[in-house]
């Protein structure tokens, strides 16, 4: 310890804590024996998939991608790429929440119906393959948000080890970086329906326009957090503060406008405050109740199928 600065010691403590938490995660996974993971290829589930395969081996892990119109196709490719790189066995199923009228009406608890659809497909797969636990990548930060989808997970006996063991998003990013998982610096990517204000119906056509607009902006070179918010024929684009500076300049603004219009919006506006998570929740007077997300207690093979 001699000769080390306080800053170095603090850094060492932080690293010890993080690696200690990862060791507890490995112990927890060993105690399950085998797992089916709901896999989106995002920061959390990619990390969890890698640790699970390293701990249990590929024959005791199955990462299942629930493909839905409410996620961009590029995300599934990213999920497949991460899985291939780290030897994670993947299985893909299609989900159909967009055609559930309760979901399509876009109520504030929309995510409950999406996750109900997802888990009602995935839990039977776990049972049929003899996998002991169904898990997801929910983290400790998520528990502080309004997450109606978490209730669906609880109802289906899905476990959230990252949240149970106190992993925060920043922990997962740091540990992913150490493992060289490319998602470590990936922006959060909530579903495309989150771009549509509550109460405005979600339709496949609207999702496709939003997806195309965001893809066009990425192709143009927009970096960092990005949302194309749907307001009928107008797209309200949210960018990070740095990007906002860049794209408000006349030449950038023209290119950005043309890209979004090319995707199908008639009008394009830049939000002057830039990216805000959950920004649509305060518009239109519909605000979700602040309800802490619950944590599941798991299911056993003896439980009836959901």
């Amino acid at each position, binding site marked *: 310890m001699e000769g080390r600065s306080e800053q170095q010691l603090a850094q060492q403590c932080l690293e010890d804590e993080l690696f200690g938490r990862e060791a507890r995660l490995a112990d927890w996974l060993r105690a399950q024996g085998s797992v089916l993971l709901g896999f989106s290829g995002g920061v959390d589930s990619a990390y969890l998939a890698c640790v699970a395969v390293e701990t249990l081996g590929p024959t005791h892990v199955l990462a299942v991608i629930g493909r839905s119109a409410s996620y961009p196709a590029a995300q599934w490719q990213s999920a497949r790429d991460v899985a291939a790189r780290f030897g994670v066995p993947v299985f893909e199923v299609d989900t159909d929440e967009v055609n559930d009228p309760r979901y399509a009406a876009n109520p504030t608890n929309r995510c409950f119906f999406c996750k109900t659809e997802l888990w009602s497909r995935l839990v039977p797969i776990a049972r049929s393959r003899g996998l002991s636990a169904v898990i997801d990548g929910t983290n400790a930060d998520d528990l502080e948000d309004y997450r109606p989808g978490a209730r669906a997970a609880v109802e289906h006996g899905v476990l959230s080890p990252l949240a149970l063991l106190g992993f925060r998003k920043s922990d997962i990013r740091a540990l992913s970086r150490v493992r060289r998982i490319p998602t470590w610096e990936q922006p959060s990517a909530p579903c495309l329906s989150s771009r549509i204000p509550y109460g405005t119906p979600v*339709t496949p*056509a*609207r999702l496709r*326009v939003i997806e195309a607009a965001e893809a066009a902006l990425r192709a143009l070179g927009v970096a960092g957090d990005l949302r194309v918010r*749907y*307001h*009928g*024929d*107008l797209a*309200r684009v949210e960018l990070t503060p740095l990007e906002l*500076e860049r794209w*408000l*300049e*006349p030449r950038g*603004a*023209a290119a*950005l*406008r*043309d890209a979004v219009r090319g995707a199908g*919006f*008639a*009008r*394009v*506006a*830049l*939000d*002057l*405050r830039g990216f805000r998570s959950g*920004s649509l929740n*305060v*518009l*239109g*007077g519909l605000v979700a109740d602040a309800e802490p997300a619950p944590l599941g207690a798991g299911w056993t093979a003896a439980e009836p199928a959901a």
Partner: protein
Amino acid sequence: MSARSREGLERALRELGLHCVVEAWDALAVAVPELGARGFENPETRQRAIALARTHGFSHLAVELRGAESEPSARATLSGD
């Protein structure tokens, strides 16, 4: 938040040198600049505009990116597809 006033915000933005028409979409104000008008790219002006929007009851302020081909008639409807 104060009572919402589209006209008040439009007037305040003009006094700030931002020549635009303001559309109110619930708590979102969309500033539609007059053709050739500039000013929102200045960070200080932008911050003042955001503060004015809040003062006039809007939680969000966006600026429409208009092209020379934009026609007022194309901007008349709020609903989309």
